[in-house]
């Protein structure tokens, strides 16, 4: 879509590690079974403190739809494309299965999907958002960790959240310019 820049803002303190986002994503996007096959995930942080004062954080994540995407730079056949709205996606017919993108991605956001015969990844559920619906992971989350929207619209919820609260991105030093923002 023209004139839009899609992004997700996450409040990971709300995450209860139920993994409903991963299940919803697999169902919505026909992700094959198997431990290596997923488009989004929840990383479980190390346990903090000592009994009885304990804490643990969870970090849900997926493709960062980078503004400077290493996967697109390295793909020998331009199978990885970037839409004007920022969505990074794979054109399955062009993918040769060299997995260079998998070694280039600092977030391990890609996997090889045997069913479609190509490397696969999160597309922000483009099949849903282009008809005005929310990505499956956003819609299903019981604690509303993820908020999806258009950063080019100053009144969108993602823009308002990023204006109101400080945020961070993952591995900022890689220079990938991620579009998943974690509220601090």
């Amino acid at each position, binding site marked *: 879509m023209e004139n839009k820049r899609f992004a997700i803002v996450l409040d990971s303190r709300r995450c209860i590690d139920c993994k409903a986002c991963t299940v919803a994503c697999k169902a919505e996007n026909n992700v094959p079974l198997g431990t290596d096959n997923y488009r989004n995930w929840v990383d479980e942080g190390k346990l903090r403190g000592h009994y009885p004062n304990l804490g643990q954080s969870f970090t849900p994540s997926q493709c960062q739809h980078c503004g400077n995407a*290493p996967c697109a730079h390295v793909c*020998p056949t331009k199978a990885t494309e970037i839409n004007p709205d920022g969505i990074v996606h794979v054109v399955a017919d062009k993918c040769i299965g*060299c997995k*260079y993108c998998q*070694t280039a991605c600092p977030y*391990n956001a890609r996997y090889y999907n045997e069913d479609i015969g190509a490397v696969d990844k999160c597309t922000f559920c483009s099949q849903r958002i282009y008809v005005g619906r929310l990505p499956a992971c956003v819609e299903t989350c019981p604690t509303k960790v993820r908020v999806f929207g258009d950063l080019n619209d100053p009144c969108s919820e993602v823009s308002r959240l990023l204006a109101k609260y400080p945020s961070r991105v993952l591995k900022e030093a890689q220079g990938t310019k991620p579009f998943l923002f974690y509220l601090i």
Partner: protein
Amino acid sequence: MPSFLKHRPSLPVWFVLLGIGCVIGIAGVINVLVHGHAEVYNVTREIPWGILIATYVFLVVSSTGLCLISSLGHVFGIAKFEFIGKRAIILAILTLLCGFGTIAMELNHPIRMGIYAILSPNFHSAIWWMGTLYGIYLILLCGEFYFLMKGMHKGAFAMGMLGFVAAISAHSNLGAVFGLLEARPFWHGSFLPIYFILSALVSGGAIVSMIVYFSHKDSGEEMPQKYDDFIQTIAKLQTLFLWMLVFFVVWKIIPGVYGHPPEKYEATMAMLTGPLAFNFWFFEVLLGLVVPVGLLLNPGTRNAIGVMYAGLSATIGIFFMRYDLVVAGQLVSMREDAANLVNGLLQYTPSLTEVAIVVGAISLCLLLYTLAERLLPLNPDEH
């Protein structure tokens, strides 16, 4: 040196061994074609490049090395090196083709690669350049071999010169396939393109030492004067290359541990004390460096058979250098809280099918070379 080490296997035994190796390889290829990569390979989403990529790198490094060493003769005019020209170039062609075969088994869609590398090229991609430059290099090697066989020295010189440039470009670019990945600190930087060229020289010197020994008719230590002179020269050259490689290995390790640079440190320690430690110390250091340097420096072993064993030992060591380089770069998870880590690292062990394809590729390469040796006039004065 024990007498059994001084004799080559007889030709029928050699053909049987290589035949078995090729059958194992064919079984591996059939297994992956029937069941698919995911079922029979142990590569994962986190470690997508395994032993097949390492073998590809090993084979194309060998090809580059052979081309560079042979160019000393018919391109740079060092007369002593001219007599290995045909053998080195035909083996450079065969190692390159077997390398292509190995990577084709790793790619999920090698046919699509042929189509979309032309229809939809990405000039920013080091893998696109790798395919293109090695393609050009293969054509030039074939041209060079043709002119050498026909005894057309001007043509061989021109092709050899272009082939030399193509070999350096293609091979340093192969280093860049790894070196351009900012996400992988163990690989990232300008070290690997330079290191790949140097280690190609070691590979080339090692393999030339072996083919000179095995291509002459008599078994044992006595050789015609011309062979013996060449052996002495290649021994000195190879000693120099190996010391340079020691320098490169040391300066790969020290920046990897000094100050514990994040991710690079963990990958380096995986080689020094972790899951790759046996590969590193036994194969890379002992077989790859210490044994060959010892054999080449000791005047008692600096003869045809000693230099041959130095080459064999270095070649085995270099295979593991490729494997460790490819795997170590991926052992550190891109996500520090990933759930599947053992001692903080991801894990990879090649599957039987992957190993079978490696055995098949190397056996096929040796089989084709043995046939070429028997069927083609490869001696310098034969046309």
